[in-house]
């Protein structure tokens, strides 16, 4: 299994994914497009404002191309998309791409912090539960993860802001500070929202890891590792974990999408002006280009996450490579 073979496999997978991305984007944007027009009310009316005259509304409509037939509007949108142009937001009056790229670092920071929380909590908890399967530690993790899954992140978010942010003032309650202003100011603003956002993923990771690792630890090769004198830590974290991580990676991939969705709620609660906040505003305003932009962005992130997951499978499971 030379590096060249792995490299070729990786490249061909990458190529296939990129090709598949094109029809996928077409379908998803068409679906979004159709959904928007199911929303009652005339977008031109909304954009022109409450007291606008009929002429003003008509002007807005022709200005934005809303007077053209639907299929024409969609094709125009697609054509622009292929040229990398996501259009201009109706409400913000700014190119959608500029809005997204300005807010992207904020949401990515939040998502990364949330995922780091999820892994830092989920993996040790899952390992502990699997090693102590059936004992009290296992039960504590099971109850904890059920609680984590059952708590909506807006409830947790509000609780954290109120208690830690406002009552004790240990961490900033709301807002966002760029990393350029210092690492700690940046991180301290992300800890509460990141935790609120990451808890569900942490619980999901802990449950998956507990199940798969408990099974792996009963395998013959784990007994071999013990029989050759490996210390318990090496047996679990090396021999066990590498085999148990497959289902966990799948969960991480899926959770990346959920985290992105969760930012809509969490950013609103914590007053963070990221993409989640942008998406909420876009939907409330019926701002079609902005919504489409967010959808395209979400598709790209999701496809990338699943690509990373697949590449990780290859590393974790060498048997897949030779086929």
């Amino acid at each position, binding site marked *: 299994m030379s590096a060249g073979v792995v490299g070729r496999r990786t490249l061909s997978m990458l190529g296939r994914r990129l090709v598949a991305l094109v029809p996928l984007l077409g379908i998803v944007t068409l679906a979004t497009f159709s959904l928007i027009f199911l929303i009652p009310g005339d977008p031109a009316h909304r954009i022109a404002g409450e007291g606008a005259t009929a002429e003003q509304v008509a002007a807005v409509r022709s200005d934005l191309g809303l007077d053209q037939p639907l299929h024409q509007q969609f094709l125009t949108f697609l054509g622009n998309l292929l040229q990398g142009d996501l259009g201009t937001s109706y409400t913000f009056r700014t190119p959608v791409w500029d809005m997204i790229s300005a807010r992207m670092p904020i949401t990515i920071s939040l998502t990364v912090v949330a995922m780091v929380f999820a892994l830092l909590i989920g993996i040790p908890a899952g390992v502990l539960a699997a090693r102590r399967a059936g004992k009290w530690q296992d039960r504590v993790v099971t109850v904890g993860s059920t609680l984590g899954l059952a708590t909506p992140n807006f409830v947790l978010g509000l609780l954290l802001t109120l208690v830690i942010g406002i009552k004790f003032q240990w961490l900033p309650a709301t807002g966002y500070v760029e990393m350029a202003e210092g690492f700690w100011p940046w991180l301290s603003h992300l800890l509460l929202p990141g935790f609120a956002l990451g808890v569900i993923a942490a619980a999901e990771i802990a449950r998956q890891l507990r199940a798969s690792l408990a099974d792996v630890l009963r395998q013959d090769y784990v007994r071999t590792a013990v*029989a050759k004198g490996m210390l318990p830590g090496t047996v679990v974290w090396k021999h066990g974990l590498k085999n148990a991580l497959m289902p966990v990676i799948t969960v991480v991939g899926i959770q990346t999408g959920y985290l992105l969705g969760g930012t809509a709620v969490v950013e609103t609660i914590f007053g963070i002006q990221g993409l989640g906040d942008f998406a909420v505003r876009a939907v409330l305003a019926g701002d079609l280009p902005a919504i489409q932009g967010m959808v395209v962005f979400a598709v790209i992130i999701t496809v990338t996450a699943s690509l990373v997951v697949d590449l990780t499978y290859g590393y*974790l499971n060498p048997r897949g490579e030779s086929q």
Partner: protein
Amino acid sequence: MTTPLLSVRDLTVEFAVRGSWQPVVTDVSFDVMPGQVVALVGESGSGKSVSCFALLRLHGDSGRTSRGEVLFDGRDLLSLSEREMADVRGNEISMIFQEPMTSLNPAFTVGSQIAEVVRRHRGASRAEARKRAIEVLDLVGIPRAASRIGDYPHQFSGGMRQRVMIAMALATDPRMLIADEPTTALDVTIQAQILDLVKDLARDFGMGVLLVTHDLGVVADACDEVVVMYAGQVVERAECFDIFARPRHPYTAGLMRSLPRVDGMGEIEIIPGTPPMPDQFPEHCRFAARCPHAVAACEAGPVALEPRVNGGAVRCVRTLELDLRRTPEGSLA
């Protein structure tokens, strides 16, 4: 006479069954000398694998050793701390298992799995450990060892995987090898090669070998001493040739008769019935219920393991009265 490398004394292993501790192996005693291959023989469920696992304390939480000693070089393994035990495993005593297909970790290359044990016990550098991995793979007869250390277990056949397991077991030059039915899962030709390899290693390196098997062909082929187990007890223990020539326990004799003979002499006989489960072990002779020679005395009380004619030990009240040779005297040419 040299002192034994491994001396097992009255080993009793219990397992938790429905909330109570049930003895599965009772008072097992035997010795392994340096360079000697000792066979542990018996039907499935006789406690031979359990005994082996107990020697290295690998039976997990559901089992415990309630009595006895496992003296390795005079040191009782049962009284070591977990950490000290981990230093013995894979270093002074190595073990190979019945299932070569599942005993290697599928996620790591065979080279790294061998190198790992060398680094753990010898404190070797990466390069040294890698070199040693190639050396031992070569020793166990893996062709092009240097180019195969980067391969994963799924790229090897069952026989080759068992060789990898043996290579891994030998990488630290252990003084003792425990092999739990190492050839059961393999083809007959591969089986012979693996056994020859184990025999050679015992002879060339003075390694003591405990070979668990239910295959008497393997015993006759490879072993110096035989320990026969039945229902968690040692029923007979003797030098290999002697036990084949003249078994002194009806169960051993029964095992011999169930072995087909090339010369076609004698019928193949099976032992009727099945061995008792641990929760049904009787107080008296555990084989009495299936023994063709059982009399009232056999069920009178526990039977002790007594010295045996021609050396060894046997657990049978009638051993001196019975002639258990396969071919009755007189018809021998």
